[in-house]
């Protein structure tokens, strides 16, 4: 997301229905081996430090250092929350072949965003706004791309615009620790290292808080969570 056209403040949420139907229970079953494998391999522990696993509408925003980040975060949610939490993923990657399309739509019920901005007239945040309007929660990686160093890259502005458009949605920072060691970039075989997923205290956008101030605050919240988790 490269800070594209933004819905003007105050504009009503669109009521366009989500383009894909919810996965059926049978399709959901397919997620079991995937979440089971992720949890077994990483011994995944969910630490609810700043909030409880409640069925509230939320945007979980996390650090991004591995392809498996969203699978682990998604697996770390209790099943009831998982059913309504949709990972936001890049369309360029997930539309590439039939298997990926099947997984992202039918199993993970992901929200695909056009990172390459093919259609200049369409708001690239629209699929996320639609999902939020439909009552779903989102799993979002505001760094926009995988970070191979320590710490965090600067946040893309999407999180701010979503917070602005949907003030009722809680923004929960989530720190995923160690997964970059367990599933390093460019390696096929994952290493069985222990990972933790820490959920921090929800943020809300201040009344007159600017974009850069908010994004810096959100990034700091995530970094503080990382320091606590270490």
């Amino acid at each position: 997301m490269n800070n594209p056209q933004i819905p003007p403040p105050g504009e009503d949420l669109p009521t366009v229905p989500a383009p894909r139907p919810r996965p059926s229970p049978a399709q959901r079953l397919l997620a079991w081996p995937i979440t089971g494998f992720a949890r077994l391999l990483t011994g995944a522990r969910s630490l609810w430090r700043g909030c409880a696993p409640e069925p509230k509408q939320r945007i979980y925003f996390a650090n991004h250092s591995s392809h498996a980040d969203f699978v682990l975060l998604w697996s770390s949610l209790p099943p009831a929350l998982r059913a309504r939490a949709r990972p936001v993923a890049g369309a360029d990657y997930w539309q590439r072949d039939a298997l990926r399309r099947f997984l992202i739509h039918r199993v993970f019920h992901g929200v695909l965003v056009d990172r390459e901005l093919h259609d200049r007239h369409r708001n690239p945040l629209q699929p996320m706004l639609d999902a939020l309007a439909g009552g779903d929660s989102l799993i979002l990686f505001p760094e926009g791309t995988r970070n191979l160093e320590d710490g965090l890259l600067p946040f893309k502005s999407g999180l701010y615009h979503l917070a602005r458009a949907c003030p009722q949605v809680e923004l929960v920072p989530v720190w995923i620790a160690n997964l970059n060691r367990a599933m390093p970039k460019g390696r096929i075989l994952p290493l069985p290292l222990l990972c933790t997923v820490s959920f921090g205290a929800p943020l809300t956008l201040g009344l007159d808080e600017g974009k850069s101030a908010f994004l810096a605050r959100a990034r700091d919240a995530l970094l503080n969570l990382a320091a606590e988790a270490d």
Partner: protein
Amino acid sequence: MDRDTLSLFAGIGALLALASLIGFVLQWRCRGADSPVIDNLNARINAWWVMVAVLGGAFWLGHGAVILLFCAVSFFALREFITLAPTRGSDYPALAAAFYLVLPLQYLLIAYDWYGLFSIFIPVYVFLLLPILASLGGDTAHFLERTAKVQWGMMIAVFCISHVPALLTLDIPGFEGRHLLLIAWLVLVVQLSDVLQYVCGKLLGKRRIAPRLSPSKTVEGFAGGIALATLTGAAFYWITPFDVWQAALIALVVTLLGFFGGLVMSAIKRDRGVKDWGHMIEGHGGMLDRLDSVCFAAPVFFHLLRWGWA
């Protein structure tokens, strides 16, 4: 399982039942009031039931199951160790080899009873192979530290722990078919020593024995735990190839090693700023928290038996 093994497990079951009863009474006496010590005690006792049941199940299934069980134990221990030991991207080939090649091979060597290679595989060949693999990535930052940490993890979590099922390969004249009892005796004495050190420490502990390494260990806990576990080891001489004095002496050696093993592993945890290695055993911490003493006791016990009785 023979009759001795069955009666041993029945005895342990009775002991745990007594412990559970005491835990229940303690909890009942302080109802209303929160007591983290008693909650932790009960969590520990419950975890003991599970651990004894798992070990008993493996004994019932036979030697292959026991080797597989300790292979899994090594896996969990190595995972905890490597998780806490910082490595870099270039260590990936060495770590992948450690988990997916060395660990299963070490246990295969036990299953095939190849002592000559089992005893030097990790200390010699893996010791040379892992740094070669790590060097291929071309990253020199903290190179010696990184390779030392991975090798240390292999030694503790795989090499040392594998000496427990390796007891099954010893040929002890007049002791055929009773090998599982060697494992039972070793695990019983070492773990009982840990438990009795904890109990004596909680009841009588005053002077701390190693305040910087392990603040909860006391002189009273140390003396009481080692003495009582040594006596227990001697009392169970009839399940071993030892006479009663030999059993007492060897029990003393393995419990002392277990104690110092606990201190060493505690020093590593403190240096890394954590209290426990992991979280997989409720009330105890991680696999390595429960097995630190066995890691240090098992190889020496194995070699004492091999030199003196096999």
